């Protein structure tokens, strides 16, 4: 096999074809495997423009009819609202709680906090659907420990997932239980990698803890926080298994998020073409939100470290040279 030559200045502008092509070849298997997944996505768009149902599995082109119907359907707007509410609340609670717990863990170094740092990843490792089963069991009125606890406090007949008022709160709670540890460990890692000197100078300068937090800690943690936000928001917008496992979208239409509605219409009612626009809109929302957050993250990262991911793309083709980073 030919060894890639260390490129001298003369080779800079015209790297040999083999070297130019090599990266694509290396990436190819990965791409092939994942592009195989892109095809279903294209198919989904195509089918959303047809009248395909399981009952009549013929893709008659109907143009935008499914889309227009969807925008006129009040269940669609309810689904968008439910999706946004669920994503907002679970992400908000996870971020705030996660930040708080991470700060606490970062400032303590006793045995308890060290053990907790490891132990609190356990809920994250539980599959969300299993987590929902566990919580369902705890909230049940006959054998549930939490229900018994509430009974001790004199509160009977808590409905949790059975009532429209408390159903959203219940699924958000389960989501927080599973995913808050994700935020905690990310931010904790950020905290632990903060440079010490600014804080030492701030101590000399005086100033309240809150002030230090606002002007020093938060901005430096921004990239970290934004990554946590990105992952959690994207996941919460599409959450399916928790809601479905708890109430299948009920009671009524309270928890019929875009994911759950698409599943119900597509797989349960077998009217697949009319379900696809719901999930395509969800994908659109996810994409828009993601690109905004990634933009903010790039900015925050640049401000924090002076590195910018965009740069290498502008560089010429070739291998990474001494002292450079890709």
């Amino acid at each position: 096999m030919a060894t890639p030559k260390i490129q001298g200045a003369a080779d800079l502008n015209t790297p040999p074809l083999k070297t130019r092509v090599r990266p694509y070849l290396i990436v190819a298997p990965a791409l092939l495997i994942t592009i195989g997944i892109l095809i279903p996505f294209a198919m989904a768009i195509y089918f959303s423009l047809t009248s395909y149902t399981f009952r009549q599995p013929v893709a008659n082109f109907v143009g935008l009819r499914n889309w227009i119907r969807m925008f006129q359907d009040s269940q669609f707007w309810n689904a968008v609202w439910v999706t946004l509410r669920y994503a907002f609340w679970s992400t908000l609670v996870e971020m705030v709680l996660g930040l708080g717990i991470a700060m606490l863990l970062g400032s303590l170094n006793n045995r308890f906090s060290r053990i907790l740092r490891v132990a609190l990843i356990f809920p994250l490792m539980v599959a969300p659907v299993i987590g929902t089963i566990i919580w369902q069991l705890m909230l049940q009125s006959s054998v549930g420990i939490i229900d018994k606890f509430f009974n001790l406090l004199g509160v009977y007949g808590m409905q949790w997932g059975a009532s429209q008022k408390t159903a959203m709160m219940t699924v958000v709670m389960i989501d927080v239980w599973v995913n808050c540890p994700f935020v905690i460990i990310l931010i904790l890692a950020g905290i632990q990698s903060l440079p010490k000197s600014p804080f030492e100078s701030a101590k000399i300068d005086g100033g309240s803890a809150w002030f230090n937090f606002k002007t020093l800690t938060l901005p430096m943690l921004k990239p970290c926080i934004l990554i946590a936000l990105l992952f959690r928001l994207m996941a919460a917008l599409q959450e399916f298994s928790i809601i479905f496992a708890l109430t299948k979208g009920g009671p009524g239409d309270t928890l019929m998020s875009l994911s759950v509605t698409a599943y119900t219409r597509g797989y349960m009612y077998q009217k697949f073409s009319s379900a696809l626009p719901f999930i395509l809109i969800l994908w659109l929302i996810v994409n828009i939100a993601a690109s905004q957050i990634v933009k903010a993250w790039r900015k925050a990262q640049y401000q924090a470290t002076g590195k910018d991911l965009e740069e290498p793309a502008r560089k010429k083709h070739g291998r990474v040279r001494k002292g450079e980073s890709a």
Partner: protein
Amino acid sequence: MRKYFALALALTLMATMFVGVASAETSKVNWQAYAGTKLQVMFNQHNYQKAITDYGKLEEFEKKTGIDVEFSVTPEENYFDKLNIALSSKSGEPDIFMTGAYQVWEYASAGYMEPLEKYINDPTVTEPTYNFADFYPGVVGTLAWDCVPGHPVGSGSQWALPMGYELNNIAYNKKYFDEKGIKLPTTTGELLETAKSLKEWNGTGSYGIAVRGTRNWATIHPGYMTLFSTWGAKDFAIENGKLVCKLDSPEAIAMTDYWVKLVVEGSSPQWATFTWYEAGSHLGAGVAAMLYDATCNGYFQNYPAGASAQSGNLGWYAGVVPDGSGLTEKDIKSNVWVWSMGMNANSDNKGAAWLFLQYFTSPEYMLFSGTDGACADSPRKSVADSDAYKSVVGKSFGYLEALDTLLPNATIQFTPQPYFFETTTEWAATLQDLVEQYRTTGSCDTAGAMKALKQKLDIAVEDLQIG
């Protein structure tokens, strides 16, 4: 002379003997014809499935035929989702699946199911002792349909064979009712009062009556649909060649209004999470004093002894009629649900699949399932009439009597159409909304909700062509 007469008599007798033997039906079925084949079966988690899989009967079948049977068991909440996907993939798997009558409307219309009459009527694959006529026509007929929306069941191809059937009535904790001298409610008003008075009858968290409540078609079809039909309401009617939803009729509104009150004042606050399993197991655990659901749901809690905490304490009766309607329990229009087994139209192993279907709906097997298998509602008259069955099922107080009362008027109360899943699930969602409204504000706009539901369902079925 007498000697010749005796000889002639003897010869005649012998001749008739031979004639008798020659005309006795001989089995032409080769049970080993498909030895070595593999069959895939999808079961819903149910006693009917347990009777096949848990008592060694499946192994007996495998030995008799040399066929290897692989099966999966799914809880009811997820079962039809999974089955929908499997069937619509047209992969030919599963070869056999459990289904209900309503699902036949959808699956047969879509071409997923194999018509069975050609197997039933073929003596080379069906034993003469199979005796198809032994099935109650009212039961096996629910699985025959001509696939025209709006047309009633009973004619057309035979799409599936019954494993059992379920009517819907009220099961109650007989021991407690007898102890406290509680009279069985016979009208809706009495039922509401009784259920209300039974709150906390057995400790905190216990309540009067359990009914299903999830956002699922299964919430509508048992007790609710029975009372709905008894009240005189209908789900759809055919007008001018189109299916028109009739859920905004005065009877539908009145009945739904009553049901909402019953749920809020007489049932559990967690009603909206109750599936068949919760409702039944609450009766069995002594949390619910009554159960308005499928006949056998309570039965599985009662038999065999030790099946649940309250096993042996339960009783059954036909149900209630609307206040002031002047009807008696004989007028109750029970809805019917028939768990059955069907064959995948795309299966590669139809011959072997037929042997499976035949075996597990045969008179011999069903005698077992109806007695030791704890499958109370046998669809075969021969089994239902047998002493063995009567002695086992008769142990459950009032069970057989309630069946007798309800059978004449029992039928599928829904209008057959292939969008059944969609229409009844949205119906259940509306019911959940109303219950929530009533529970939180003390009143609910049933008329408004049912009218909105009617409009939604009219749109859902508008593309169906009526024959």
